[in-house]
């Protein structure tokens, strides 16, 4: 694997994460429990779609075959997507969506904070912007974790259920592979071990404060690093890519 190939994959993983999580959050549009929440979730989705666009455009440049972010979003098949599995899981109830934002945003906060020191200046610029946006996601999800966890019996039960179900998908966020090893040697990629420790500390603190139990570490779901996904990604893509597949050169 060359450095370009490694960077291409690294960017696809980041870009696809933002794209697919954004897709899920946008499904809440007009369905959130209150108007303010509708605005918050769609604001997050917008942050993520912007991030996806910037990163996938960069991926297209690295690949050098003239692909735009749209080409990469609409014309890749499932096995060529590298988003982490947690992003593609269905929204579930509001607690489930919030627990996912909590886990993902804390991960992204530390990940992009580190990426600000990357040797790749395009990535540092995108990272600087992302950190500012992710802070809002993190603050918001933390508020809700506390409110639901330390709320009624019903809200606590639902939040705990969400935390327990999502837990097995969090380990994958910190996985490394050949691509990250090559990039780490060149000070481009982030040291995952360090981020994992910080993530665990924060998550433990927030869940404990929210009167929620921190699940024990056990089996972790994995596969997305090789393009192996849950059944849900195919369904997302069939909807998301429909127009470009039916009318391949369609533009606004």
């Amino acid at each position: 694997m060359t450095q370009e190939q490694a960077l291409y994959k690294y960017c696809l993983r980041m870009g696809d994460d933002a794209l697919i999580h954004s897709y899920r959050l946008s499904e809440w549009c007009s369905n959130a429990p209150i108007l303010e929440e509708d605005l918050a979730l769609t604001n997050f989705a917008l942050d993520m779609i912007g991030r996806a666009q910037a990163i996938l455009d960069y991926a297209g440049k690295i690949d050098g075959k003239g692909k735009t972010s749209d080409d990469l979003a609409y014309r890749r098949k499932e096995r060529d997507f590298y988003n982490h599995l947690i992003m593609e899981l269905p929204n579930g109830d509001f607690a489930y969506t919030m627990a996912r934002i909590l886990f993902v945003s804390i991960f992204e906060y530390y990940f992009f904070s580190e990426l600000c020191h990357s040797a790749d200046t395009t990535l540092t610029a995108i990272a600087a912007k992302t950190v500012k946006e992710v802070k809002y996601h993190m603050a918001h999800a933390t508020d809700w974790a506390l409110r639901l966890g330390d709320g009624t019996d019903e809200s606590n039960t639902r939040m705990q259920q969400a935390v327990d179900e999502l837990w097995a998908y969090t380990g994958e966020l910190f996985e490394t592979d050949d691509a990250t090893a090559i990039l780490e040697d060149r000070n481009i990629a982030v040291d995952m071990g360090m981020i994992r420790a910080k993530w665990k500390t924060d998550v433990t603190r927030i869940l404990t404060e929210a009167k929620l139990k921190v699940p024990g570490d056990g089996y972790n779901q994995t596969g997305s690093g090789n393009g192996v996904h849950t059944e849900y990604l195919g369904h997302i893509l069939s909807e998301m890519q429909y127009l470009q597949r039916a009318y391949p050169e369609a533009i606004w």
Partner: protein
Amino acid sequence: MLSVINDPEIPVVTIFEMGMLRDVKITDKGYEVIITPTYSGCPAMGIIEQDIKMTLEAQGVRPVTVKLVHDPAWTTDWMSNTAKAKLKEYGIAPPLHSSCNSEVFTNNIIECPHCHSDDTVLMSRFGATACKALYQCNNCKEPFEYFKCH
């Protein structure tokens, strides 16, 4: 010529005052305008790109290409003082001067753009566009938007 182009989301300020306009290059292929997006998902970017092309080409400056440059990243500190004053005039509280962005977690005092009272309260961190939060003034009771420091 470019200084007449407004931000489509906040029509009282120009893209120049917002600090988005980075550079204009004249190459043998034409004119290249370099802009930096304000927020990652800002839906106004496409419209701004079009406005730049139409404004210049209408004046005979062509062909024009618009290039988005992300590095270095835009911050609200790039907004000129004129832009901040105009925002306030328009009823949007301008961002506090600070790139540190710690306001997510602490309750900063945001002055009401209508009656200038400091007695205001955060209603929602998220408003009608990605860049604004919702506040209400306890003095004049008016709701207002605050341009988030970024």
